[in-house]
């Protein structure tokens, strides 16, 4: 079977992983790949754990990624990076945002947040990219809300797709007034990765 590349985007409901997913999918369509994408909606919007699969190649059947087969994982939050680590293949790449969002059981004192998440990831992931996306977004674009695109820039660096395609699709998918800031954010992520 022709090669299919598996990508995961993981985070917390409300973090706005949807824009990043839309841009990634748009880039892959633009490059002429067969693409399938699957996400669970509904309850995930109420602060729950969010998991999105993107698969692309010459021909894709299943929209689901199997554990141990992800080539790339983009994690918008540290705990979620650890949670979905079983999906990463041994030689896979993990891009993680250095951000902790405490889940309800932790806030209530019923569970412990793994504050050593980055250490766990460093030990277990061969190709790990740690990004402080909020800081980069603030420094390079002056707009902290561009951090999704910063993270996407970091992911893009590890994918074999011309940067021009990314620039085009980012520009098409963000509000016109924010195109410049988002392109800066993309390059900040690319260079930071």
């Amino acid at each position: 079977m022709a090669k299919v590349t598996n990508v995961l985007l993981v985070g917390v409901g409300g973090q706005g992983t949807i824009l990043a997913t839309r841009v990634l999918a748009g880039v892959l369509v633009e490059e002429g790949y067969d693409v399938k994408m699957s996400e669970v909606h509904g309850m995930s919007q109420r602060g729950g754990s969010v998991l999105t699969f993107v698969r692309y190649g010459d021909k894709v059947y299943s929209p689901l990624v199997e554990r141990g087969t992800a080539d790339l994982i983009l994690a918008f939050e540290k705990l979620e990076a650890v949670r979905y680590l079983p999906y990463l293949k041994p030689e896979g790449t993990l891009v993680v945002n250095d951000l902790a969002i405490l889940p309800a059981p932790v806030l209530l004192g019923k569970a412990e947040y793994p504050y050593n998440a980055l250490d766990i990831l460093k030990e277990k992931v061969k190709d790990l990219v740690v990004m402080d996306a909020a800081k980069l977004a603030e420094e390079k674009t002056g707009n902290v809300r561009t951090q999704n695109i910063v993270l996407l820039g970091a992911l893009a660096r590890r994918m074999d797709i011309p940067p021009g395609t990314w620039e085009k699709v980012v520009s098409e998918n963000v509000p016109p007034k924010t195109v410049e800031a988002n392109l800066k954010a993309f390059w900040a992520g690319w260079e930071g990765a």
Partner: protein
Amino acid sequence: MKKLLSGDEAIARGAYEYGCAFAAAYPGTPSTEILENIIPYKEIYAEWSSNEKVALEVALGASLAGARALVAMKHVGLNVAADPLFTAAYTGVNGGLILVTADEPSLHSSQNEQDNRNVAPFAKIPMLEPSDSQEAKDLVGEAFRISEEFDTPVLLRITTRIAHAKGLVECRERREVPVKEYKKDAAKYCMVPANAMRRRVFVEERTRRLAEFGETFPYNRIEWGDRSVGIITSGISYQYAKEVFGEGASYLKLTLTWPLPQKLIREFAAGVEKLYVIEELDPFLETQIKAMGIPVVGKEIVPTMYELSPEILRQKFFGAEPAPNPVADLNLPPRPPVLCAGCPHRPVFYILKKLRVPVMGDIGCYGLGLQPPLEAVDTTICMGASVGMAHGFQKVGAWNGLDRRTVGVIGDSTFFHGGMPGVADMVFNKGAGVVVVLDNRTTAMTGHQPHPGSGITAKGEPTVEIKIEDVVRALGVKDVQIVDSYDLKAVEAAVRHALDYDGPSVVICRRACALLKGLPDLGKAVVNQEKCTRCHACLRTGCPALVSHQDGSVAIDQNACNGCFVCGQVCPVGAIEKVGGGERG
């Protein structure tokens, strides 16, 4: 041109391209985005109906009036719509009529897991199952054609992984289909016993003709490969089978899955050495194929519960070991969905918990009120059940001299969907239950669709805003109170009064969903660290904007806070202060 569309979006696109003129739905995961994506097409009339039964009835009316009509609902919605469906199967249609059922294996956002493929033989209507977004769009066209040619409603059955997975879809222009002439025909449309008995015969004959049609229907197809293994499959299971078996098997991909093409199945079975059925949930195909006398292996291997996946097939068919879990020894905290910061349901549940009263819950965001720390909800069954159950629960007390005072909690959209008959029943039968309507001015859980109390239609036009207080008074409820959900004291006083009132009582807790756009700025709550005693009373509201630090101190995430100030009302030392914001709107 090709677009990346979800199955829901593809069905909406199909409705547009194939001349659908009328669409109706009640929102419910994973079906909601079908109508949401139809609404922008100005060529199609679209409405959010008050419930699925009404949605099917208006669509049937539109069909008889001559228009191509589509109605969409989640799997449990079809239970509500079953009554008109089972007789629409007899009347047949005029303009084509499609009923989309979006089933939810693994019940991600549902109260049960049901396989609505079983409805097709039960209601005696044909069923189509797409395997991806492209087919989801194409089959809208096929379904309209079949509906009109065979004079039947058509069930278009999808699952979450079709509805919400995206794939490439070739999009075309709309082909207008003129509204057909309507001819009065009581023998066909008035299902009184004498007429229905004759239509009953027609239905059997129609099923026989549909089975014949399925033999050459191009979407039922054999893909010959390695003939040592033959797989009969449909829907998303086809993709999983192809992913796992690839060229190492032959496939019979079924798309018209009721009635089944028996000759095609026999031809396929005869052409392979070992025959399997790979299907999600019930042994729907398998049972029928076995009844044909064909030896086949299915549910001995393939699970009957939850979503299927390529991983499961690899494990079950090839004994593949699950991938190693490098974080298995870590006790990671779960991240369940929670009521949002500023959610107007939170203060009401806080009070109901404090009053220790049994709470009959209902379907909506407020189902989240069962989770810690609120833990206020006793039951969750179906749309509208809270009211009837509260009545039944309270009656047992009244009949046996026990205290069975109870509260039924229902949202505003759910009230219009299924709550009103329960209130009529409670009044009629001299009940004394309490109905708390959590009126957040929208259908929040599914993404803010308008409902009969919203004053706006699906198409964004202003309309009559039906007031819940007017409805319950008209239904004979004398004790009706309206309070601001954010006002803890007012909510508590109203519920206490209602519980003690000798008769049916309604408390409308009104405050817009905090996620709605255009709400007044309420400012932010801030912890005054000098006053805070770290007693954590505020954390017992379960608001996700409250952050407790490892040293025991508490802060409020200013980005998350929506200024409801419920935490400030529960703080015993006045350590939470309000900053900014206008008067409470």
